[in-house]
């Protein structure tokens, strides 16, 4: 074959490779574009309109209002309440949950434990349960009079707590339930991280006379740092989206003590049909999540340097 012919067949091949690639990509990327990317952009536009229930029947009723939704939002005490509650959940619940994950990971990874696989499966089981069903069950566990939790606490001499009826206790109750529901997931990731730590490190530490606590502090924790950062970022993104627990257990109450950002977004959007306002809430949520993720990534970089 001459050179020109070779070039031609090569060009032909490149073209057919390209065509095959597009053929494989299109079925996934077109839906992602239409049902994820376009709505995300549209939400941004929506957040600058006064789209409401009248616009639902005729879109021409919607007008651009500039930053009005955002301005209104930042003046809305309910929004700040929801933001404070969500931050409470993220900043208290997140670290506690990760501590529980790490603790149980160390436990199931301990050589002293025999049925490691079984224990791991038991600890993990709440993760696969349906959140709505779990919230329904825990609502009864938290019952001030007939609930199992207060009954168990009564043996420790603790007086009954109105978990979901008391504004002070409602958010801690939701945090406690989320820890129970979620710790198993990150536990598994920590177990994988623990198994990746070379055993020689511990051996040489033992030879140097380091006790268990010193080994944990100077080997386990530093070696797990990348895993911890990864897990914290994922947990934070998930925790900011708190919705189902308050929706099922408290409807945001009592006195808005469990109202979360997403619950507020849902109420504004799908109960009162203030879709423009609701979209602004969604974007503030997005902004906060983005900020949090960047901050954590930056802290990690600084830790490495």
């Amino acid at each position, binding site marked *: 074959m001459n050179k020109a012919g070779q070039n031609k067949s090569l060009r032909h091949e490149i073209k057919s490779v390209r065509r095959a690639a597009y053929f494989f990509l299109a079925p996934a990327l077109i839906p992602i574009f239409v*049902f994820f990317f376009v709505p995300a952009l549209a939400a941004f536009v929506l957040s600058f309109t006064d789209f409401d229930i009248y616009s639902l029947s005729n879109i021409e009723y919607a007008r651009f209002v500039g930053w009005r939704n955002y301005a209104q939002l930042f003046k809305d005490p309910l929004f700040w309440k929801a933001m404070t509650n969500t931050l409470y959940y993220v900043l208290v619940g997140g670290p506690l949950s990760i501590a529980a994950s790490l603790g149980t990971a160390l436990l199931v990874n301990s050589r002293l434990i025999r049925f490691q696989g079984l224990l791991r499966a*038991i600890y993990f089981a709440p993760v696969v349960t*349906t959140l*709505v*069903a779990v919230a329904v069950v825990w609502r009864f566990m938290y019952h001030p009079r007939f609930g199992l939790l207060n*009954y168990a606490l009564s043996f420790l001499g603790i007086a009954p707590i109105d978990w979901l009826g008391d504004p002070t206790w409602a958010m801690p109750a939701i945090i406690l339930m989320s820890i129970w529901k979620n710790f198993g997931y990150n536990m598994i990731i920590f177990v994988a991280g623990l198994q990746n730590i070379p055993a020689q490190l511990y051996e040489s530490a033992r030879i140097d006379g380091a006790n268990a606590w010193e080994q944990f502090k100077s080997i386990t924790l530093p070696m797990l740092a990348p895993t911890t950062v990864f897990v914290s970022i994922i947990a934070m993104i998930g925790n900011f989206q708190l919705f189902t627990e308050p929706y099922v257990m408290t409807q945001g109450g009592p006195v808005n003590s469990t109202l979360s950002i997403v619950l507020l977004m849902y109420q504004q959007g799908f109960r009162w049909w203030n879709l423009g306002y609701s979209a602004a809430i*969604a974007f503030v949520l997005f902004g906060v999540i983005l900020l949090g993720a960047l901050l954590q990534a930056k802290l990690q970089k600084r830790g490495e340097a």
Partner: protein
Amino acid sequence: MIKSLGKFLIIGLAIIIAVVTLAPAMWMLSASFMSTGEASTFPPRLLPTRITFEHYFTLFTRLQLSRYLVNSLVLSVSVTAISLFFNSMAGYAFAKYRFPGRDRLFRFLVAEMVIPAQVTTLPLFLMLNKVGLINTYAGVIVAGIATIYGIFLVRQFALSIPDSFIEAARMDGASDFRIYWRVILPRCKPILITLAIFTFMGTWNDFLWPLIVMTDDSMYTLPVALANLTGEHVQDTELMMAGAVMTILPVMIIFVALQKYYISGIMAAGLKE
């Protein structure tokens, strides 16, 4: 002496945590077999005095639970099958095909993962409303046809498949699709099983999206129906527990059967990033 005390403490702690972890689920199961009102006694009863199936009977007759079970099943199976197919094709293309802008496109997609799904719900609802897909299976499914995370997982896995397998199949005259179907898919089995379990459970357990899309009672998924029932039957503890059991049971069965794949999948996904 100290060593055996430490061992005793660790084992004791492990057992206590296991009991606490299982307690809510055990109590749910137990209460679902109690007769009406028995769960609301003081001191709380741990086991039913007499086992009754009346609540399960009520669920399936008067409350049409089978309807919701079917809805949940249809949606979870469809989303899993469709997204597995499309995600694996795209993941394969990103891993093994050279085309202009590939890496940039892939990086762009991965960056999009920080956008929380809630941001898209409002416009997506309006879109579906416009084309009449509200209150249909298709309306719930469209949001899960393909996922960036799924594409990402398959791509990472497919990268490790040697090119020589693909070249050999091409020499034999296999078409691109045939290579994907007969060479790539079988080798991607571990990640596909993991992804299938993730997707099935994610769709089964999802709440916000079906809550928004399904406006008619007969189209509710199990979680939406259960949340709705709790509003109406708030006093009926035992009935609610039976409903919770029926909602959790299918995913629990899958978990117990496939937990080996599931757990190793999470480990792999967690370490890659």
